[in-house]
């Protein structure tokens, strides 16, 4: 499985990356895109929305099925990746380059509660 060491993860197959500007980028893992198959639709949450940890905030649809995207930590949505509405297949091509939305965390320390690469690998296998 392709699970970069420097990212954090959720059991619901999101990856989470802390950016230099203090925001957090969120996408779905390579394992998740492989399970879903060809992705044809991505719906990210609205910018400005306040989200709670574990809340369903968006959706990814493949040819086969629809799957929710969850917020890994609490915060406010500050950006959505418009490229993916036009080209959802990018998630299949490179899941870790295809961030879906960014949030400004309520509490940066919440990131420490997420899975590290080793723990995610265990959880996903």
């Amino acid at each position, binding site marked *: 499985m392709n699970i970069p060491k420097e990212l954090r993860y959720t059991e619901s197959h999101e990856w989470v990356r802390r950016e230099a500007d203090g925001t957090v980028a969120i996408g779905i893992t390579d394992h998740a895109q492989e399970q879903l*198959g060809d992705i044809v639709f991505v719906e990210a949450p609205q910018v400005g929305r306040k989200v709670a940890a574990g809340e369903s905030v968006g959706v990814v649809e493949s*040819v086969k099925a629809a799957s929710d995207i969850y917020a890994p930590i609490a915060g406010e949505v500050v950006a959505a990746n418009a490229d993916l509405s036009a080209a959802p297949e990018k998630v299949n091509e490179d899941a870790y380059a295809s961030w879906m939305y960014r949030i400004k965390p309520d509490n940066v320390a919440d990131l420490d509660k997420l899975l590290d690469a080793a723990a995610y690998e265990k959880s996903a296998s």
Partner: protein
Amino acid sequence: MLKTTPLNAGHRAAGARMVDFGGWDMPVNYGSQIEEHHAVRREAGLFDVSHMLAVDLEGPGARAFLQRALANDVAKLKAPGKALYSCMLTEQGGVVDDLIVYFFDDEHFRLVVNAGTAQKDLDWLDQLRVASGAQVKLTPRRDLAILAIQGPRARESFWQCFPDTRAATQDLVAFSAARIGDMMVARTGYTGEDGFEVILPAALAPAAWDKLVAAGARPAGLGARDTLRLEAGMNLYGQDMDESVSPLDAGLAWTVDMKTPRDFVGRKALEENGQRHDFVGLVLLDAGGVLRAHQKVHTPAGEGEITSGTFSPTLGKSIALARVPRGVKPGDTVQVAIRDKKLSARVVKPPFVRNGKSLLPN
């Protein structure tokens, strides 16, 4: 314990993602499902459909028995090799299964039935046989495998691998079959493309598969099979119709033959109930998701429901088959509930795609 086809080890070796399909361990995709779909529309794809069951019917009562058991009329089958699509109905007019029946000679027909319903079908047919006293023997042929090679280059690829079959199969018209030794080659399919379905002894299937792949036919899984059949406007049993649904409400009136007074199972119920719904195609107009089975369809005439929906790789849009109130017409715009939104869809007459080309109105 899942059942396996003779090609199971090959699918696994090819890295297929396997799923439980009606109790069978089957490949859903090998790599990209969309690429497999395009291969069938543009060149040739290869499917293992050995989970489906061939059932031979032999005996002097075979034709009369099928005229009683099937909603379509096997009297249409006159030339040896000719095939017919039909539903088999309950007394209440629901669909027990849909199938293809092949005519070999007056005392030998062959049915090909769905995997998930195979045992139910055998029990049902046997019960009908006993009740009617028909002189017919039913033989399920689990010793056979079924391959489908589909696409504009499918027949050429097949002949390249099996040159001895060319003479007997090159003049086959659609919906007819030839038997060459212990192989049956039919110009049928479930994709809306040209091609063959090939029934052969299970032991010969792995070598035949490998040969066809070497000749350029791309292995395609059940995922692509589903998007292809939906684009082709073909029903899937268990999804678009089942025992609770009349063929008249599933877009299959064309397969129900009531031109003669023939007494087939379910006829009385069909005549009493008539057609209660229209069965239409939908094309999603708005962005916002993918049409899927069980989504509600809101029309001026009332509420309907999607029975099959997907993203169409050929059209680049989401499409669906839906059961809607009578009076909903091609060209109408309806609303489909997807999650918390209502999205617009245009009503069209299926099929959506045939022989690689869009049939959508501009």
